[in-house]
């Protein structure tokens, strides 16, 4: 079975997603359990795969149907994407668990819940596929699965959600097309879609114009998907109005895996010897810096909790892009670490947002006054994750910033360090403002929709509290154990520089 792990990680949830509507027709409860079970199975397998990759010390190759590359589709699992897959599977499973109290509140239970879980599972499948594949076109296919699932999950959210979903549909399609065009240009120049093969054949390509156009298309295409400034237009609305329970996943990882794809193209397929690569890094650097500052400044303007988090994501995606722009080992290590740590941070913060809505329907930070007395677990998670977002030790956010700054100074890019510092301080302003409201604000009268007295003294259902605490625990673990992650990805990243 261990040989088939790479594909099983995707097939199992795929079966779950397809079976869920069928089972739900007879029993919605079991339909839900199918999806949650499939995603947990996928998570367990992804951890096994992680261990396997670590033990082998070299990438695992899986040939779909036994067709060898470059003709068949290949999954390649190395140090970097083994981590990504485990992260996606973990957040997918946690979010599916987290969703159930939200879906129970739904009156049209049977069809609605079947659709919801199925689409949520497809979102996870798409992201898992994007991270696993070693084929540029296959990545596009999975990217479209992600986008379609994303449109659905955003559209079933709040009142304004359909508009946000439509907006994402338009920009997202353009982004996907740009990516596809980029891949098309590369295919025309190299005659292959397999990433490893493409990297080899690019060495002999003489027509550089095609490559440069392809690069531009890829930056724009992936930039839209990862909401990199100035291609972020769709993101704030989508993240603010999406389905409450699915939002953590949309905000946490839907924008991260395109960033991982950017790493694949920038460092594994293209390399430094290509002309204009330096310029591409600079352009991405400028986008990143503008995004970091724009996102942080914009977040200061809002009082709606989700909006603050959404704009903060634009800034944080900038951190990741900044790591790629720095482009040395520590820059990339910082970026990869930030993909993982920010995924857990943002997912966790959106969990807290959903939990606040679940219990008190709090949307604006002004209503947070004294909530910490009533929701201590949620508040504790919020504080931990927010401190990590600001980049304070000993939480994960500090250490990704450490590696990014280290990489930047090694390259003599002091300006980037200044931007990181400024962004931390701006982040401190909007997060400490939330703390002030939470701990020192005046209490507002709110209807408690989950009274602790009726539920054995629990502030929220366990299915909400466990994912919350898991996110906080992961941030502490990733912070204290960051050198393990860096060691794990070290070999893969270093190979980039040997090639």
């Amino acid at each position, binding site marked *: 079975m261990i040989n088939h792990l790479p594909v099983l990680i995707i097939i199992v949830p795929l079966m779950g997603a397809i079976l869920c509507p069928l089972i739900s027709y007879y029993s919605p409860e079991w339909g839900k359990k199918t999806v949650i079970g499939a995603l947990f199975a996928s998570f367990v397998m992804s951890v096994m795969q992680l261990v396997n990759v670590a033990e082998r010390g070299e990438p695992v190759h899986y040939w779909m149907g036994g067709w060898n590359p470059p003709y068949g589709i290949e999954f390649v699992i190395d140090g970097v994407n083994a981590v990504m897959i485990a992260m996606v599977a973990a957040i997918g499973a946690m979010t599916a668990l987290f969703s159930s109290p939200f879906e129970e509140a739904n009156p049209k239970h049977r069809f609605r819940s079947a659709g919801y879980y199925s689409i949520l599972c497809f979102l996870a499948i798409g992201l898992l596929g994007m991270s696993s594949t070693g084929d540029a076109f296959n990545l596009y296919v999975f990217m479209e699965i992600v986008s379609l699932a994303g449109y659905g999950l955003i559209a079933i959210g709040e009142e304004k959600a359909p508009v946000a979903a439509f907006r994402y549909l338009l920009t997202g399609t353009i982004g996907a097309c740009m990516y596809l065009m980029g891949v098309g240009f590369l295919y025309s120049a190299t005659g292959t879609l397999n990433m490893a093969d493409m990297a080899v054949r690019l060495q002999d390509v003489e027509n550089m114009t095609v490559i440069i156009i392809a690069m531009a298309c890829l930056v724009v295409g992936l930039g839209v998907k990862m909401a990199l400034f100035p291609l972020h237009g769709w993101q704030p609305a989508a993240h603010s109005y999406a389905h409450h329970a699915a939002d953590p996943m949309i905000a946490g990882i839907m924008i991260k895996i395109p960033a991982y794809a950017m790493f694949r193209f920038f460092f594994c397929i293209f390399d430094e010897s290509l002309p204009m690569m330096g310029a591409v890094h600079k352009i991405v650097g400028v986008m990143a810096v503008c995004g970091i500052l724009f996102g942080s400044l914009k977040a200061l303007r809002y009082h709606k909790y989700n909006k603050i988090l959404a704009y903060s994501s634009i800034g944080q995606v900038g951190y990741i892009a900044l790591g790629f722009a720095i482009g040395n080992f*520590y820059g990339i*290590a910082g970026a990869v670490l930030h993909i993982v740590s920010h995924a857990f941070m943002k997912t966790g913060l959106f969990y807290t947002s959903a939990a606040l809505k679940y219990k008190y329907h709090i949307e604006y930070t002004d209503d947070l006054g004294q909530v910490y007395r009533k929701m201590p677990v949620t508040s504790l998670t919020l504080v931990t994750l927010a*401190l990590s977002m600001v980049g*304070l*030790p*000993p939480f994960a956010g*500090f*250490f990704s*910033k*450490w*590696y990014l*700054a*280290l990489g930047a*100074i*090694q390259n003599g890019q002091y300006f980037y*360090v*200044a931007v*990181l*510092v400024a962004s*931390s*301080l701006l982040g*401190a302003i909007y997060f*400490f403002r939330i703390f*002030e409201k939470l*701990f*020192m604000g005046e209490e507002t009268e709110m209807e408690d929709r989950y009274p602790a007295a009726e539920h054995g003294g629990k502030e929220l259902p366990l299915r909400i509290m466990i994912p919350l605490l898991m996110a906080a625990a992961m941030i502490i673990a990733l912070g*204290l*154990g*960051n*050198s393990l992650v*860096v*060691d794990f990805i*070290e070999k893969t990243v270093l190979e980039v520089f040997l090639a």
Partner: protein
Amino acid sequence: MIIESLRPLAAVAVSLLAAVLIMICGNRVKPDVREGITLGAAVIKALLVFSMVPAVLAGNEYYCSPWEIVDGISLAFRTDAAGMVFACVASGLWIVTSIYSIGYMRGHHEKNQTGYFAAFAVCLSSAIGIAFAANLITFFIFYEMLTIATYPLVSHYRNDSAKASGRKYLAYTLISGQLFFAAIVTVYVKYGTLDFRAGGFIEAGSMGQTAMLLLFILMLGGGAVKSGLMPLHGWLPSAMVAPTPVSALLHAVAVVKAGAFCVLRIVWFVFGAESAAWCGGGRLLTWLAAATIILSSLIAMRKDNLKARLAYSTIGQLSYIILGIGILAPYSVTGAAFHIVAHAFLKITLFMCAGAIYVTTGLSEISTMGGLFKRMPVTCVCFTAASLGIAGLPLLAGFVSKMNIIRGAFMENKLFFVAVLVAAALFALSYLIPVVRIFFGKEISSPVINEGGEASPAMLVPIVITAVVSFILGVMPNAGPQLYNLAVMAAQGGGPIG
């Protein structure tokens, strides 16, 4: 000799565990149990720290590095002499402050005591972490933890003025902290190490003079803010809105001392005397410190609020430490390290007196305290003794440290600073002695002074203990854990006193 031992880590971890325990128990258990956890942790911590003193005095060091905290650098703790000085003061005074806190918080019927005691415990963990950190990244982690853990204490009352001073505190500390961070990364890239080394690891001439001065300023910004060096002192007086034990903690034990200790670590163990002198950073420090000493004394004289007056006195006294370090002579550094001890005991006595007066009589303005000796004789006597100590009178702890700093300044031929130090002693007398005169005056300015009696024993006992210790340290600086010898060792860069 290096002794591999988990004791330094345990000393850091014990109060962190206590904080977690306090948070979990919260209001579910009786306050007695909750405070029992605090006291228990304080005693265990102090025992752990003091148990390491003899070996350190013999020239050994305990070392422990549990795991790699970032790629290539370990989270490492090492108990050198300088760290021991700070750790002994912080852990010893935590016991005293805890007892006092219990008396104060209950006497004053404060709210949110669970959060208060938890944050307090985290502060102490961070302080010990700062003391024992063996490299800059470990140091920075605990330094930032201290910043965050102090924030809820500063804004304890949660009203508008508490919020404002909390914001001010964060603005100062977070900005300087982030600059410190950038400087640490730069040092790591340029020099490939972050381990503290006696005499420093940054060599003079290894980068441009201006560049190194810039690095020096960025590195010391964090320390200068926390130790209230002018013009970065703004947060300290406004943090006075916090409960008095917090002020005592801020001013005497953890926060400002962590700042001063940071300056000592960076100047003496990262840059070293030679580089600090070469880039001009030492001179910058001494001039800023001298200006702070004079200006803060002048401001202190005009404050009628007792805590505000003490706050400005703290700013001035901390600059003594910085001045001692900035002079860059071993004697002055010894004096500076010992002043961490001396000022801690003296200032905590003063603050605890101010708090005791406030809780017992409700008075906070000096002009309303006329004749207080009649009602609170013990408190007034302790206050007087500590005041004289702050001014640097012989037989009290402040004298030992100040004499050493002056001696260092003489040896470096920096006569101007000798004059500053002497003038400052007179200034200190001039802002504290009037308070004492009012206490002992015949005229009774508030009717409350004729009622009731002394402060409650939970507050009075700590005050007497710290006052007596200040006296003992003034007569026998080497009493108990031989803190003076440790200070000498710190300045000489390790090795037993031979």
